[in-house]
């Protein structure tokens, strides 16, 4: 069959039409991934605006711009949105888009579940922001500590919306995690053994395993919380044998790995960018993989360092101090490997690499303040001060957002087929780097001077006014840098230079197909013989034959050596994932108002799931 005919038939088999129905029923991982990324950035915008509002309030002492009630909602919505609706989803979204392409397969495993996950995430996010707009916004902090978040001190529905949104987004995150694990273990291109997996995919695999082990903790916690509030259970009520500290244990058993759930995909992005712009394979591939795995492992032994001020036994505090410091070793190892890759390569300082260099500086600074906070005596002094705010923004923005911004410039040509402006990218980097450090470095000093976090104003006599003004100016500059990014992206989509399949000359498989990739990803499934297949096979790419072009077949492979074992059918588009997500949303929102919604809501969810599961007499089922 001629190549053109193969492409035409594959496009007919895998393509998504332009109509509304096609858009609502699509299971194409690239369309779902793009939606995820754009939605996550929409939430970033909302969270960013709430941060700007807070900084305007704090720019001068005794400001009356925002009252305490709205301020409480703003900082809760900011943290909640950043952590649950932006940081984790955006990393998973990049995984949803890129992992199948980097592994050389035609779709993600369980594509209908993938579509369902997106809808659930969208509805959960909209639910809490609609609640905020209706003045029922969550206001007990993104950590929702009890008893503040319990029925006694937070009456009304504010915390209920928060708790249900948490459960929603975690359902979505966990489903995506399973999809990514199974795609990585079972759908790699033949020949892509474990030691040939791209580092970004390794990072997503470790992250996904962490999500499976960490996120049930916060789901359990949020479920206990809403049960305490709605049906009178006593999990956190000390008068009836409950324990407020139980909340903190469950929350931080999730919450600390969460930092690395956000950070590890970013390190995968850094690895890909460093390799691409050093123009050489990664120095210490095995060390980088082992560092990813050990960071994932160690991150579960750190949660109590968020609770040093709660009066723990000495031995426990010492253990968690040690483990908190220990995690610096694999993180340092990664940084040394990246520096060695750059040192021994021929680096090109394009925009993506600039963001990686910014990441080195900011993340290392954040890591150092983290080591300070891991020390119990210092933590007692700095607990709940602006020093902590400075530290975690250095870690999270430096460790995750800067690599993410680099990743946008790096993969934008693949996703859109167009190049972003390099000049605007450099302006973006300069503004972001300067704005970030102006916004967050003085917070260290404010914290050392005793400024507590989560306060909506302060007195002039404290002497914190000048530094707060500087912080607010930096925050505005940082926010402005995102306007530059948005303008650059919009302009690039409209009139950017055409990218071609591999504009950076990179070796991984996502660059072996068109930009943007066709619906079927690859005309022929590649066979992998090297860690950087496109650098090893410069003349022609070894490929698979014998896969149907009129059916949605993918090659399933063995988990370790990636030997081809099955021609699996990938599910066809379906409306049932959307209907199931709507049914789940109705059940969850209903349960905020009546426990019976769990019963009748469960029934409509069950009907939707049967519709999803039941074959429609399609070719998929007839085989």
């Amino acid at each position, binding site marked *: 069959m001629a190549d053109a005919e193969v492409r035409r038939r594959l496009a007919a088999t895998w393509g998504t039409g332009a109509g509304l129905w096609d858009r609502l029923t699509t299971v194409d991982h690239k369309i779902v991934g793009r939606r995820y990324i754009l939605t996550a950035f929409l939430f970033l915008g909302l969270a960013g605006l709430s941060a700007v509002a807070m900084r305007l309030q704090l720019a001068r002492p005794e400001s009356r711009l925002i009252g305490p009630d709205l301020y409480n909602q703003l900082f809760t919505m900011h943290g909640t949105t950043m952590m649950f609706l932006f940081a984790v989803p955006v990393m998973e979204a990049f995984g949803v888009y890129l992992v199948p392409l980097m592994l050389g397969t035609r779709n993600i*495993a*369980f594509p209908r579940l993938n579509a369902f996950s997106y809808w659930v995430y969208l509805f959960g996010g909209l639910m809490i922001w609609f609640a905020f707009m209706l003045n029922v916004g969550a206001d007990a902090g993104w950590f929702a500590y009890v008893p503040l978040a319990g029925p006694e001190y937070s009456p009304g529905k504010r915390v209920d919306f928060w708790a249900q949104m948490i459960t929603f987004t975690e359902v979505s995150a*966990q489903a995506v995690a*399973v999809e990514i*694990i*199974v795609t990585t*273990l*079972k*759908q790699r291109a*033949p020949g892509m053994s474990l030691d040939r997996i791209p580092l970004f995919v390794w990072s997503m695999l470790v992250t996904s395993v962490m999500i*499976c*082990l960490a996120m*049930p*903790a916060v789901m*359990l916690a949020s479920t*206990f919380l809403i*049960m*305490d509030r709605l*049906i*009178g*259970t*006593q*999990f956190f009520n000390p008068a*009836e*044998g*409950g*324990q407020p500290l*139980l909340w903190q*244990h*469950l929350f931080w*058993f999730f919450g600390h790995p969460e930092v690395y759930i956000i950070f590890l995909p970013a390190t995968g992005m850094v690895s890909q960018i460093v390799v691409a712009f050093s123009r050489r394979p990664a120095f210490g591939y095995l060390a980088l993989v082992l560092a990813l795995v050990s960071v994932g492992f160690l991150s579960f032994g750190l949660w109590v360092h968020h609770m040093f001020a709660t009066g723990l036994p000495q031995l426990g505090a010492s253990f968690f101090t040690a483990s908190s410091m220990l995690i610096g070793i694999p993180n340092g190892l990664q940084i040394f490997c990246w520096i060695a890759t750059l040192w021994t390569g021929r680096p090109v300082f394009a925009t993506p690499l600039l963001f990686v260099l910014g990441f080195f500086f900011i993340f290392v600074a954040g890591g150092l303040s983290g080591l300070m906070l891991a020390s119990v005596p210092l933590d007692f002094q700095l607990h709940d001060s602006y020093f902590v705010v400075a530290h975690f923004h250095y870690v999270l923005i430096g460790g995750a957002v800067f690599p993410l911004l680099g990743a946008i410039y790096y993969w934008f040509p693949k996703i859109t087929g167009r190049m972003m402006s390099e000049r605007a990218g450099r302006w973006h980097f300069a503004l972001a780097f300067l704005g970030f450090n102006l916004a967050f470095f003085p917070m260290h000093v404010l914290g050392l001077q005793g400024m507590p976090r989560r306060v909506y104003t302060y007195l002039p006599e404290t002497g914190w006014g000048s530094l707060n003004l500087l912080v607010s100016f930096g925050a505005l500059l940082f926010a402005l840098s995102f306007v530059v990014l948005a303008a650059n992206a919009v302009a690039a989509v409209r009139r950017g230079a055409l990218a071609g399949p591999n504009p950076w000359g990179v070796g991984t498989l996502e660059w*072996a197909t068109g930009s943007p990739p066709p619906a079927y990803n690859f*005309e*022929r499934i590649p*066979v992998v013989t090297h860690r950087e297949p*496109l650098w090893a*096979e410069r003349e*022609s*790419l*070894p*490929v*698979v*034959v*014998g*896969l149907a072009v009129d059916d949605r*077949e993918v*090659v*399933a492979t063995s988990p370790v050596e990636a030997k*081809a*074992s*099955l*021609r*699996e*059918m990938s599910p066809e588009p379906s409306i049932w994932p959307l209907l199931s997500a709507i049914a789940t949303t109705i059940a969850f929102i209903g349960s905020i108002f009546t426990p019976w919604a769990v019963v009748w809501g469960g029934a409509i969810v069950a009907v939707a799931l*049967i519709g999803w599961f*039941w*074959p429609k*007499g399609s070719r998929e*089922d007839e*085989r």
Partner: protein
Amino acid sequence: MKHRPILDVSHLPSYGYGPASPIWWGTLGFIVLESTGFLLAAGTYLYLAAVNPDWPLATPPPGLLWSTLILAVLLASLWPNRMAKQDAEQEDLGRTRRNLLVMSAVGLVLIGIRFLEFTTLNVRWDQNAYGSILWAILGLHTLHIITDVGDTLVLTALMFTRHGHGKRFSDVSDNAFYWDFVVASWVPLYVLIQGGPRLWPGG
């Protein structure tokens, strides 16, 4: 870039069983997730027991009868479940249908017994923290029984239609794999909720 065909996959089967099947790995992924949930719920139980001087908080331990009967029926169900898995993997439609009917009946009976078990807990969910975690653990496990029985009922119906062939046998095998998890998770939970109040110092 030019292509160089080096591997023909046209001879490969279109579905497989156990670790060969991506669905099996997906099921395993959800088992890991849910096991973590069970472990954390059990950890919560032990934590609350540890921070309270009396356990179970001035209430008698839960009744043994229905809880133990559930354990016995669950363990007994391992055998027909094993048959369901084996016969499905041999693609014997008649025996698979029969096994699925048996497993559906077992599941429905278990749901009935579980509701009776709820009536013998000797504590309400809102009475104290002990009641809350006891109901939560039992509710969590009940949710697993209900979802797996729901899945079994749908699969049973499916196998009596024209769709009962090919990849559906693999689905039956994976469903049996998940049921093994539902059974295995109950054993430690049973020991915890029945043994805890009886053996815990101060209990």
